[in-house]
Structures are given as C-alpha cells and as structure tokens.
C-alpha cells in the first residue's frame, strides 16, 4: 500500500462539505502558511521538488520563483482546470470529491505569490463542477478562509471560477489566459512568458489542479519531508487516471516507486486485463505522449524494469520511451487496432487545432485523411513515409505544444507498429474485418486467466 497524500480522505462521508473537511484536518496548511513569509513558502515548495502535474513536469517552486514582481502591479494565480487530454480525468475526481483540497491549495499558493484575485479556469464540458467549486468557495468564505483579511493575517484573496467553452487548446497556458480575458483562445507567442506578462499583462502563474492540491501536503509535511516520498526527481505522489482495457479503471494515487507492471496487473491498481486478453500497447501519460508496445512498457531498452515515475517512463527518449505527461494511462489489449487508434487521436487533434499557425492547421487535417485511407484499406505504402514526413515537419515548428502533441502519437505509432500499418496496406479487405493482433509486441507474460 503506497503513501496517499491527496486521496487519503477521499472516501470520508461528506468530505465535499466544509464541516467534514475541516474536522478531518482541512485548512491546517493555510493556518501554517499565513504564519510563514511568502518567500519561505516558495522555498518550501522548491525544497519539496514538486513537479507540475499538468504534463510538462516543470518544477512548481521554480515556476513560482520566476514570477516578476514589479511595484504596484497586481499578480495573479490561475488554476488550470481545463483538463482536456483524452484519457486524463484525475482533476475531475479531485474537484468533484475534494473541492476544498483545491481551494486550500489555492489560498496557500495565492498567499505565496501575492495574488489577491485567483482564477479557476475550468473546461466547459465539466458542466456540473463549477457549482461544486462555487459552493466550496462560499463555504470557505463564510468561515473566513477567503475574502478580506483572511484569518486576521491582513491578506485578501478572492477565488473566481471561470468556465471555458470547450476547447482543448485552452489547456495551453497562454491560450487559457487569452480565453480568460474573454478573447479567442489562441496561444500567445512566447516570450514574454506569463510570469512576466500574463492575464491582462500582469505577472501570472498558471498551475494544474493537482499541482495546487499537492501544495497542501507540501506545507503540512514540510518540503524536506515531502521530497523523501518517491524517487530521484519524481517526488511526492501522482494521480494516475487509468482507462482502457483494464479490470479496474479509475483514479489511483501512486508514490512513484511502483513498477508499471505492478500498476497494470496488481489488484490494488488496474487489476490486469479483462477477459483473459493480453496487453498490446499502452499510452502512459495522456493521448499526446508516445504509445509504447508491451515489451517496451515493462522493460526499458536497457533491460531495466520500467517504473511509474517521470525519469523511468521517459527513459530511452522517444525512440524507446514515452512520458509521464498528465497521467492518463490508456491500456490497449490484443483486440485493439493501433491504426484505428492513431486515427482517432489524429481526428481529435485536427478538431482541436486552433488554426493559428500553418503547420498544425494544415498538417493535422492531412494526417487524419491519410490515416483514414490506411484504416479503410485505401492506403499506399508511400503514405506511411509521407505520414512520417508530415509529423516531422509539424513537430517543433509551431507556436504552442499542440503541434508536438499531434505529431508524437503518429510518430510513435509508426515507429513501433510499422508492420501493422504495412499489414493494413497489404491487406485492404482483410483489415476491414480483422485486426492485426499481437504479433511480436506481446507482453512476455502468459495469460493469467
């Protein structure tokens, strides 16, 4: 049983409400933080080694210390709750069941950054969650944790919930800021970074929901203590939202010391593959990270066991590794078709591209059309190389990371499953009725029925 820092109280009856949350030890971190100086809190978060949980894994304390502090200009904290990555639903779980944990983290972070107006930007599709959050905000306000002069400290803070209109691109921090300002959600060109010019050209920090929630245990335990959990630079605990062909889909908190194999097969977590099927492939960190075939998922190219942490998952770079990403763990069993799967992702990115810069706007649509041809048996052998060339010309040449996110899944699918693509081209009729199956990607483990 791993350490649980975020979800340890998730199953307490009524934890969504202030009274129960407070009785279970809630808002202790705010009490502690208000006695500290903002710089000390930032220092504490730095010491904890807490990394951004949104996908890129940038150290949170470092990000906080970058914020510009010009005289007389308000600063803002924005909580990125636009969790739109396919396969990722950890923030939804946090906000739906533990709204006060997020509010608590937001108050501490606002105090540390000097933000008197803090925003939660939530995706439009989470239609019922703003109500939950607003109720929690009202409860916190009624009990003196928000508003003017919080707990007699002289610090004022308001939290506002802003709903998005349903766009994946608004999860990118500068697009989120544009959208928050009421404009079209086009990513901005960096620099200037949000830490210098963010919301309304004021210094802004944008953090993921889980990152802000994790600030609470960091302050409660102290950064030093927090950094002892986990391994190396992957400190603390991480929420993983597991889905796909597994027995127990759901949100799991892991302390980053377990292996991927344990995560997939142990009963405490995913509980193995249903119906006696075998594992074919897995996307370990949300739809945009490279897909890994089973043989590379459990063992790195060096033959070491792959662990569920930032370093181990990215071991081998993109050639033989993947990324921790946002923690959307998608499992594919032997019945799944990688070409169809890649087409689904390509369609998603084509639909979600903002259309601002040309490689992403045109390239994502082109990739989708070619993949559709291959999937429906109309593909040519040259199409596979063409796909490779298109993704290569998109990656790194766009304003924001959506271009990369659209290119990586296609690149990884071709890199690891090229024979499946070729099989589709060579068997145009068979591929409509049958799947390629496992071939050599199979997990070495025998079927555990």
């Amino acid at each position, binding site marked *: 049983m791993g350490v649980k820092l975020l979800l340890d109280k998730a199953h307490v009856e009524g934890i969504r409400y202030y009274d129960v949350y407070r009785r279970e030890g809630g808002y202790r971190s705010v009490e502690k933080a208000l006695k500290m100086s903002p710089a000390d809190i930032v220092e504490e978060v730095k010491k904890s080694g807490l990394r951004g949980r949104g996908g890129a894994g940038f150290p949170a304390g470092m990000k906080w210390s970058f914020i510009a502090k010009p005289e007389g200009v308000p600063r803002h904290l924005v909580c990125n709750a636009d969790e739109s990555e396919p396969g990722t639903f950890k923030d939804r779980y946090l906000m739906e069941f533990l709204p006060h944990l997020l509010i608590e983290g937001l108050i501490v972070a606002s105090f540390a950054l000097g933000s008197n107006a803090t925003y939660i930007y939530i995706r439009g599709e989470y239609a019922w969650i703003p109500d939950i959050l607003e109720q929690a905000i009202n409860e916190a306000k009624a009990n003196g944790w928000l508003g003017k002069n919080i707990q007699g400290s002289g610090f004022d803070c308001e939290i506002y919930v802003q709903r998005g209109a349903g*766009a994946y*691109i608004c999860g990118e921090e500068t697009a989120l800021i544009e959208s928050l300002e009421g404009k*079209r959600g086009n990513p901005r*060109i960096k620099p200037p970074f949000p830490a210098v010019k963010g919301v309304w050209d004021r210094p802004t920090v944008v953090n993921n929901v889980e990152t802000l929630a994790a600030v609470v245990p960091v302050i409660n335990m102290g950064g030093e203590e927090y950094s002892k959990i986990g391994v190396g630079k992957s400190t603390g605990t991480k929420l993983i939202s597991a889905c796909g062909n597994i027995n127990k889909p759901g949100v799991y908190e892991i302390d980053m010391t377990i292996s991927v194999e344990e995560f997939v097969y142990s009963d405490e977590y995913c509980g193995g593959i249903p119906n006696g099927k075998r594992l074919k492939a897995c996307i370990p960190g949300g739809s945009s990270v490279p897909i890994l075939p089973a043989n590379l998922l459990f063992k790195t190219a060096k033959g070491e066991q792959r662990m569920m942490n930032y370093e181990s998952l990215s071991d081998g770079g993109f050639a033989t590794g993947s990324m921790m990403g946002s923690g959307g763990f998608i499992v594919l069993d032997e019945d799944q078709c990688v070409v169809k799967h890649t087409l689904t992702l390509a369609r998603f990115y*084509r*639909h*979600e*591209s*903002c*259309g*601002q*810069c*040309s*490689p992403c*706007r*045109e*390239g*994502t*649509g*082109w990739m989708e*059309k070619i993949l559709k041809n291959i999937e429906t048996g109309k593909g040519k052998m040259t199409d596979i190389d*063409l796909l490779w060339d298109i993704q290569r*010309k998109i990656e*790194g*040449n*766009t*304003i924001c990371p959506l271009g990369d996110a659209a290119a990586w899944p296609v690149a990884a699918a071709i890199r690891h499953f090229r024979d499946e693509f070729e099989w589709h081209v060579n068997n145009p009729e068979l591929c409509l009725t049958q799947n390629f199956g496992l071939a050599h990607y199979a997990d070495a483990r025998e079927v555990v029925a």
Partner: protein
Amino acid sequence: MAEEQKLFKVTIDNITVEVEPGTTILNAARKIGGDVAPPAMCYYSKLKGSGGKCRTCLVEVAAGSTADPRPMPKLVASCRTTVMDGMIVKNITSERVIDARAGVVEFLLLNHPLDCPICDQAGECHLQDLSYEHGKAGTRYEFSRRTFEKHDLGPYIQLHMTRCILCYRCVFTADQLTNKRVHGVLDRGDHAEIATYIEKALDNDFIGNVIDVCPVGALTDKTFRFKNRVWFTKPVDAHCGCDKCSGKVTLWMRGDEVFRVTARKDEWGEVEEWICNTCRFERKKVSDWTIEGPTEVSRHSVISQGHYVGITKPAETIDKVMGRKPQLLMDIHTVSGVNDPNVDLSEIEGPAHSDDFKKQ
C-alpha cells in the same frame, strides 16, 4: 541621454550587422537585405502584434548570445525573436531551415485553390513568390481542397476565403486603423475563416487597407475585379489633397485610364502610408490626381514587364546571359482574346466575358 546606447552585433548567414537592442532577427536580416531576409507572410512591421503565425520565417539560432552561446533547440520565428549581442543565426545556410520552410510552403498550399489564372492578386501575390522561391514543384496532397460558404463584405471588398492563409493581418489592420472591428476569425483549426459574424459590410473610411495588407488574393478590390491583370497596368506615384489621409498613392494605369488605386508599398511589400476609402475606390480619374512619376518596381517582378510610355527601359541582357533567345512556349495573345491589350477592358461592365471580345 548621457550614455550611448550599445548596439548588438548579430551574425546572420555569416554576415555581421549591428542593430539596436530589441530588434527582431527578421528586421536585422532585412537590414542586410537580399536572400538573407527570411520571407514573411504574416508579419507586418506596421501592425503591432502581427507575426509568428505563418512559420515561413523560421530560422536556426546557432548561438544564443556571447554570454550564453548555447544554440536554441528549436527553429524560431525570426519575426518575433529579438536579437541578443553575439547571436549567430543561420537562415539559408541551414539545411534544417530550408527543409522546414519547404514544409511550411507545402502546408500553406495544401488547401490553396491555386486559381492564379483568375485571381486578381496574381503577379503581386506573396504566396506566389514564396512558393516559387522556397517551395517544391509538386504537392503530395491527394484529397479535395476545403471550401467555405461565401460571405459578402459589401461593395468594395471581395473575400475569397479559399485563398486565405489566415495571417491575421486584416484583423490587426481593422483593430488598429478603425474604431470597431466587425470582421474576425470564426471557427477554429482548418475551418477557421475570416468573416463577419452576422452578414455585414465592412464600412469604415480606412477598411480598404485590408486589401493592401492581404498577402494573397483573399481580400481584393471589388472595383478592380476582373478588370485587368496587374502586369498590364503600370504603377505611377501620385498624390491628391485628401482631407482624410495623406493622399499619397500608387495609381495602376493603362494608357490614360486609372484601373486601381493602392497605397504605396516599400521594398518588403508593406504599405508606407495608409490611405482612405475615398482615394482608393472613388478617385478613378486622372484629373483627380497629381502624377509624380513611375513607381520603382523590382526588375524581377512581373510588373516590370511591358513599357511605360516615353520612358526608356534598361537594355535586356537575357540573350547575352543565356547565349540564345528565350524560348517562347506559347504566345498567349494568339490564343486568348482576354489577354489582347487592344481591347479596352474598362468599357466592359462587369466581369469580362469572351463574348465581349467577339464584338470587335
């Protein structure tokens, strides 16, 4: 100022130039000029906030600065990246840049209809120049090109959305020249389009400038629509006493007829001074203008073909260089009546039709 401002040394394609701090790589390269200057489809020096979108101006930064000589891992948009002292930039000397740029050109042309033969922009189209200089001869795209529903933008401006490359220049122009912008980018991704939200004419005294800033034929002058090819008309600098704008324009004439009025453009194809709608659309008589003389046109431009009346053209050296006369593939004048310069196009009302030419 007591202290003299220190200039930054930046090396682009092995040519060093000194620029003021805060200059972008693109502007530093334009200072050198020639092939060193990266192409720009969306950046417009006169429009604040423009650039960064089309990705044609990508360059490789081989060394960030003297203080931190690490190279930048990705190619950067030169129009939005400011120079540092000691920066080393590779543009046409970098294989990566040439490859990426060819990719961008392919992406831009992917859904472009390539209807140059009927496009009024042909001859002064930046996308034509870009594809010619940086693109590949063929496309690998085998699917049907996207189309849009037509939007009417009023009596002066013609919108062809299929030709648009979404550079956002017209959006910035409307934002910065007019009080209230009524058009913008709707929808997203590959179906993003320039349109007015509710069918509405663009009517502002300076909105005509969106035609000049458009790098392609997406926004063209309705009063010039199908009237002539730009290379048959001759640009002449002229001015008038206009109470709304500077009145400094370029007239596009054929004989004594004024076919089109545009703002004057500099060597990068950018407007020097914005002009008003009255000058652009209403003053189409020679008597409205004081003519200053022929506009300087690049010798490489198709517009420099043909003759000004009474002006000597430099001697043609092409047969000396080639060692023979250039081969004529097809004499278009014998094939098509539309291109017959004897026909007075301005007498035809509406778009020219082949029947109009049979009359003579």
